[in-house]
């Protein structure tokens, strides 16, 4: 698409996000499957409560989740110079899963405690990956952080395995498994308030620095010669993106593929330059998770875990892009 059509597309996409958000308020299983006629809202007090206390906070979190994961993915793929990186990378997702598992097993199953421990261990995953990368004596910045992220994720993942093994199969294991599958069924306004500062950080910082992300995808010496403080700027972006991811993962459980596939689609639409691909990825990501969550809570009488749907759609899109369009994963050395 031509550069001139970019701003028009962005406005249309923003408008689309608003429309889909408003329409989603009426999607669900009450008073009947799939659709609540808007007039019901004026007559039925249960419908009002349902929309206000359950659907609205859930939609807000779904929107923020998609925006944060896709924005973080777009930024991380650029600064790691690797189109297959996603925000769960660097031990964050597995760390958060480990934290949630500890909370479910031993600290009581209060949602706030699960969120706090998951966020704490998600950030711990990031710090461990970063600390380990500084201890490695070979390779460039990207390679060291990638290797550390793989190792830390594997350790936390093994920890989750141990906790699953220890969990009571009748009470704790189902809770843990359902959390790991990912979903937004228990979201309340309290969660929105808790996550909002992190989410805004994870949206505003990548948006503000979106053009500089391009600089950070170049060689260290080139970025340096262009006046970038590459390490410091990368750390600022990573901290914003990853802490937002950890806080949202604490509420949603593991939501895969959004942060991997949506940035690819954004780059395919308007090219690689991050000043265009980051805003587009955020809006597309928001639409993707809101629609996925609409399906998760309306298609079957019981809830389908959101993580299953995003993984299924994400993987199908990935296969489609690989076979039909030729993905932009060319690596130049």
């Amino acid at each position, binding site marked *: 698409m031509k550069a001139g059509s970019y701003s028009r597309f962005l406005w249309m996409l923003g408008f689309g996000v608003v429309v889909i958000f408003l329409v989603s308020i009426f999607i669900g299983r009450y008073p009947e499957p799939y659709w609540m006629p808007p007039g019901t809202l004026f007559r039925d007090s249960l419908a009002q409560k349902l929309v206000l206390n359950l659907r609205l906070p859930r939609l807000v979190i779904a929107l923020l989740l998609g925006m944060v994961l896709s924005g973080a993915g777009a930024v991380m793929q*650029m600064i790691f*110079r*690797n*189109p297959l990186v996603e925000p769960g990378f660097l031990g964050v997702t597995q760390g958060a899963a480990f934290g949630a598992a500890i909370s479910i097993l031993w600290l009581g199953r209060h949602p706030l405690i699960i969120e706090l421990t998951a966020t704490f261990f998600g950030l711990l995953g990031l710090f461990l990956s970063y600390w380990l990368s500084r201890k490695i004596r070979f390779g460039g910045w990207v390679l060291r952080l990638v290797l550390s992220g793989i190792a830390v994720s594997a350790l936390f993942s093994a920890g989750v395995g141990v906790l699953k093994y220890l969990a009571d199969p009748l009470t704790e294991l189902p809770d843990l498994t359902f959390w790991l599958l990912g979903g937004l069924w228990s979201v309340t306004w309290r969660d929105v308030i808790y996550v909002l500062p992190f989410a805004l950080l994870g949206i505003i910082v990548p948006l*503000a*620095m*979106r*053009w*500089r992300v*391009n*600089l950070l*995808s*170049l*060689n*260290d*010496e*080139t970025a*340096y*010669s*262009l*006046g*970038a*403080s590459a390490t410091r700027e990368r750390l600022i972006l990573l901290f914003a993106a990853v802490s937002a991811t950890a806080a949202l993962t604490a509420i949603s459980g593991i939501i895969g593929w959004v942060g991997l596939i949506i940035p690819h689609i954004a*780059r395919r639409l308007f*090219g*690689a*330059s991050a*000043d265009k691909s980051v805003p587009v990825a955020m809006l597309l990501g928001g639409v993707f998770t809101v629609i996925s969550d609409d399906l998760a809570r309306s298609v079957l009488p019981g809830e389908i875990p959101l993580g299953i749907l995003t993984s299924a759609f994400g993987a199908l899109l990935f296969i489609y892009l690989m076979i039909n369009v030729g993905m*932009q994963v*060319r*690596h*130049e*050395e």
Partner: protein
Amino acid sequence: MRNSILSLRGITFSYHQEDPRVIRNLSLEIPEGQITAILGPNGTGKTTLLHLMLGLLKPASGQILLAGKHHSEYSRRELSRILGLVPQFESIPFNFTVLEYVLLGRSPYLKPFQTPGPEDIKLAREALEAAGVLHLRQKPVTELSGGERQLCHLARALAQQTEILLLDEPTAHLDLENQSRILRLLRKMSGRGISVVLTTHDPNAAVFAAENFVLVDKGDIFAEGELDQVINAQNLSTMYNTPIRVEKVNGLTMVIMDKQK
């Protein structure tokens, strides 16, 4: 000799303690507005020298003066408005268009949260025109040939509007036509007052473009000066450790490997 724009005085540097690639007590003056070629065998510290000049590496001892002022007296942003770099390998993993890529050269003039404006786009187009690759502006960087790519790297550095251009092996892996395009372009830039420092292991490329020559061997300066003082059979044969002849044909200096000995 002209005024020097960049002075290295008594520089000592090594990557870590047991590293054999060591620079010891090296001093060097880079003349203003000329092309200086740093010649030497592979692995003798040419790239290290460029990175020291850029400020990317810090010397263990000694001083680097830029227009008479110490390196550390400049902010990062000021330095990036004075010194531009074209590295030997520049990997660009994403499909930026040539224009998007060259626009990155404007970053020293943009605030942290600013994106390039019409003036930056105009200057990037001028840089592409100067490098003779304006017609490629909408092409993805990853689809360019080796020669086109190197010209785009140069255009990116030109858009930076620096007084000094540092180039690491700018003609390596290029055919003769592209070598000549790059070197002629550097001469044109030098004619406009830009000081150019390039490293190369090819003496003929250096002779074609440069006015000032520095021979570097094992982290030390072996010889330094103008063409006739530096580029001779004895210097080159000793430095490259192989018999080399230097011939003058119709006023052109040619460096040839000697088959006879």
